[in-house]
């Protein structure tokens, strides 16, 4: 049975590789789309997804880690902190298209950021936060309590203890959560649909207030919105997105296993 779960994953990857590999070339990765996207490359979508991932990281990583530190190291059990925890758990279960609508309402319209990298990054950040907060909190809690007690008994303040011992030990786990969260953000279509993604742009975005093309949305567009689309370009785009996400996954796995091997507790 366990082997059976591997089959669809491996089959998908092999199929995408087999179908998409012929389309991928240096030109495909470094050129703009031509002929109504039926030819040329996907450079603006690759760059756009990079921008969105970085933008999401800028907002969600510091905020998520700070929230996790508060919940793990400072918060006492009160109705307020219990509400915060329940909110985080529920936030993780909200469908991504709902985040998209929320982002449209708050960032695009109310805050007047327009359809932009900024609005899309903020929307993706809200979606990513629960993942980052809960994995980071778990990693912080896994650090043995005795380290904190010893550190305090040696004249450290609580913050010095967190900075020098707890965060250092929890860092691999936190990074893993961050990467998994950002990976999800990189692959999502719905949250950026109304907040920052563009159908086609003739040039790369020049500021955070510009809209951008992005890999998952581009894949959606060329698969459903463009008639007579060559199939290799679709699979080529899927392959690039898959490699992008799998690479992040691989980095997370390497960090995790190296940390486990070097762990001193």
């Amino acid at each position, binding site marked *: 049975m366990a082997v059976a779960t591997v089959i669809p994953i491996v089959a998908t990857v092999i199929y995408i590789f087999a179908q998409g590999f012929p389309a991928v070339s240096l030109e495909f990765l470094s050129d703009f789309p031509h002929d109504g996207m039926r030819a040329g490359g996907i450079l603006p979508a690759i760059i756009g997804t990079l921008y969105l991932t970085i933008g999401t990281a800028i907002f969600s990583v510091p905020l998520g880690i700070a929230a996790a530190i508060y919940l793990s190291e400072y918060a006492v059990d009160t109705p307020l902190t219990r509400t915060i925890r329940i909110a985080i758990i529920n936030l993780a279960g909200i469908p991504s298209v709902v985040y998209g609508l929320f982002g449209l309402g708050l960032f695009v319209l109310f805050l007047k950021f327009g359809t932009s990298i900024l609005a899309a990054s903020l929307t993706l950040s809200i979606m990513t936060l629960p993942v980052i907060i809960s994995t980071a909190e778990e990693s912080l809690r896994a650090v*043995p309590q005795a380290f*904190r*007690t*010893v550190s305090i008994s*040696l*004249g*450290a303040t609580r913050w010095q203890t967190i900075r020098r011992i707890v965060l250092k030990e929890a860092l691999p786990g936190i990074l893993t959560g961050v990467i998994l969260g950002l990976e999800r953000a990189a692959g999502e279509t719905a949250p950026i649909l109304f907040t920052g993604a563009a159908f086609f742009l003739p040039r790369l975005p020049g500021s955070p207030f510009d809209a951008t093309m992005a890999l998952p949305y581009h894949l959606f567009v060329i698969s459903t919105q463009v008639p007579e689309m060559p199939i290799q370009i679709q699979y080529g785009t899927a392959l690039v997105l898959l490699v992008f996400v799998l690479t992040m996954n691989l980095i997370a796995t390497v960090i995790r296993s190296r940390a486990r091997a070097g762990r001193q507790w």
Partner: protein
Amino acid sequence: MVDKIVIENLSLQYSDGTESLRDVSLNVHEKAVTVLFGPAGGGKSTLLRCLNRLNDLTEVRASAGRILIDGENVLDPKTDVIALRRKVGMVFARPVVLPMSIRENLTYGLELAGETRRSKLDEAVERSLKLAALWDEVKDRLDDPAIALSGGQQQRLCLARSLALQPEIILLDEPTSGLDPISTGKVEAALVELKKEFTIILVPHSVQQAGRTADYAAFFLQGDLVEYNEGKALFTTPKEKRTEDYITGRFG
């Protein structure tokens, strides 16, 4: 004899209602080993953790009384607890080495105290390891991870780590409970040397260890200080029936 610590009518309850100490008064003499012993749940560890305010980390509902160290009430909310903890070092029952090298374990507290000079730090490493009788065993591998040491060595490293801060008082909470007899012997031998320089309060892991190490001994039973005397006197001619019953093994 100079009284380094004066405990006056100390009472303490945890927030779940368990009473930990009841009206305890005790004078701890300078540069001697004072042993706090008795069955589990007697309040010995709680008392230790009051002395360096480590109880601040747990939920304590009510406390009354005073603890004067060099005449200053350390239970006063205005007390600088960081300075207090540098002055009152602590070694725990389970050796907890921090996840870093042997050297970094020893310099951790000093660096937090603002010491950056390499020569001073190296000096403190050597001095404290010698005091804890560990120098010869680790001097060639100071940059190895501390976790690679044996249990007995780890516990002496923990002792050295608190000594590196040059405290005046050292609290030891069952420091040998997880150690073999040879390692225990090394720790006890180190205490004999250390009491020339430091005021030591020890919660021993057995009555026998209490008898071996005590210059002064205090017997605690369920939050009460039953009897306090010079070690020799208390273990040979206890005044209280309950003390006698415990040290002769009639209960415990």
